[in-house]
């Protein structure tokens, strides 16, 4: 199964202040190397401060407005993520426990497989959704 691990932003990551965290970067680099050597790492990235982000809020009529970052609470903001291929959610939890984090929390979510939607939604909706994802993916690959 694939699991997405969501890591929260910190006040320093929100400020873009990485200079004081060289040791943590080294520790995280070592940890990432472990994940690669264990064969479970599919993707990993960190997100730029929410000051560079935007939120789009929709009203009940479907109208939208754009809110510029930064967003209020650092602990409510995703700061980075991993995607792992593991044999169970427990295995992902055990890996997360080995991560060099302090004073934060990390969220683990199983990634849906197409089979999760089959039978729940009309097939043409499922197919259309897949088609869109395919096109998006091809643009990315090129």
């Amino acid at each position: 199964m694939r699991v997405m691990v969501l890591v929260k932003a910190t006040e320093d990551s929100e400020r873009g202040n990485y200079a004081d965290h060289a040791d943590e970067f080294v520790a995280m680099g070592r940890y990432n190397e472990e994940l690669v050597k264990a064969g479970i790492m599919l993707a990993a990235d960190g997100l730029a401060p929410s000051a560079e982000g935007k939120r789009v809020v929709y009203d009940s009529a479907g109208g939208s407005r754009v809110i510029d970052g930064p967003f209020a609470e650092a602990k409510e903001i995703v700061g980075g993520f991993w995607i792992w291929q593991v044999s169970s959610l427990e295995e992902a939890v055990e890996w997360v426990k080995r991560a060099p984090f302090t004073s934060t929390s990390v969220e683990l979510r199983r990634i849906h497989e197409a089979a999760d939607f089959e039978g729940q939604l009309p097939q043409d909706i499922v197919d259309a959704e897949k088609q869109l994802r395919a096109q998006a993916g091809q643009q990315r690959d090129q």
Partner: protein
Amino acid sequence: MADAAAKATVEAVWRIESARLIAGLARVVRDVGLAEDLAQDALVAALEQWPSSGVPANPGAWLTAVARRRYVDGVRRQASFERRIPEIARQLAEAEDPMADIEFGAPVEDDVLRLIFTACHPALSRDARVALTLKLVAGLSTEQIARAFLVSTPTMAARITRAKKALADARVPFEVPAGAELAARLASVLEVVYLIFNEGYSATSGESWTRAELCEEAMRLGRMLAALAPDEPEAHGLVALMEIQASRIPARTGRDGELITLLHQDRGRWNRLLITHGLAALGAAESLSGSEFSGPYVIQAALAACHARAPAAADTDWNRIVALYDVLLSLVPSPVIELNRAVAVSMAGGPAGGPAAGLAIVDALAGSPALRGYHLLPSVRGDLLDRLGRRAEARAEFERAAAMTANASERAHLLARAARAAAGG
């Protein structure tokens, strides 16, 4: 319920730690079988203790400590037995601590690589190598491996025991081979990983989920190998090949479980994350070797990538595929690959391409003893004849192919094509 959760946690820790644990022990005791027994003892102790005591802060170190104690106890028992023999007793009394020269350092990554090479040693049969690799390196239980290979647990347990004994009998050293031996031994490792992958990949839908899980295990093993031996293009090539092939698993079966061939698959169902990862692995292989033609796995991955990169079947670069098959054939001559090349030729444009050109190649292969009884030969021939409008001959070939395959959904597919050819399109 709490016990079940604790057991799941122990299993999860085992999946993470077992290869390093066994490898680290094997370096000391110089016997992979004994190392595995000691590690299993530690696993049993964890299953007994962790549900009440909780998971220790450093579970890997805990397991290593328990396994080490078992080993030291075993050596001591042996020593005290021997002490009863008077002449040896005197020598032992003069000797230093018998444990002093045994060093248990932290397991190093090279140990895991040594473990992989040992489990895949050519002294073992293919079945034995596959079973031992899943057991020792992937950390699967004997029961899980048995289920995946559709044999009973005692049968698989016996196979693993025999394999461990064969390693000990052959005095296989616990090491990564060097020099000229490395290439041959690496080929054996890659073969085992790809066998595991294909065992899962060739399973038709509806079969137990553990078969599909084998593909994931093989990809994991391949990525481990590529990370531990990062200078080997073929290791990256194998990862790319498996990931790009696995990306198609969700699209290979239709709503009624029927088989869907590559060109008819809904590409929207392909797993884009695996494709992205696989193409990156292929890129790593190509930049290491300076070319895409360094070995059979890299070339096969490049072939798979031709399909992965095409937004629709009609966009496939068949000329490039033909060129890649030419290189593959120069490295690995095989009538099956020739047959695949014939299909690519039939799809390619230009003066040398088209169904008639493909048919000429297939006809030249018809007498090949290696293809006797191979249902894809008449199946491909039927398809080419059909495209050339020679429908009666096409129908006969499809029917011949249908009679040769053991796979029910493939037979249904071939008979449907025979009926369509008979109806004139």
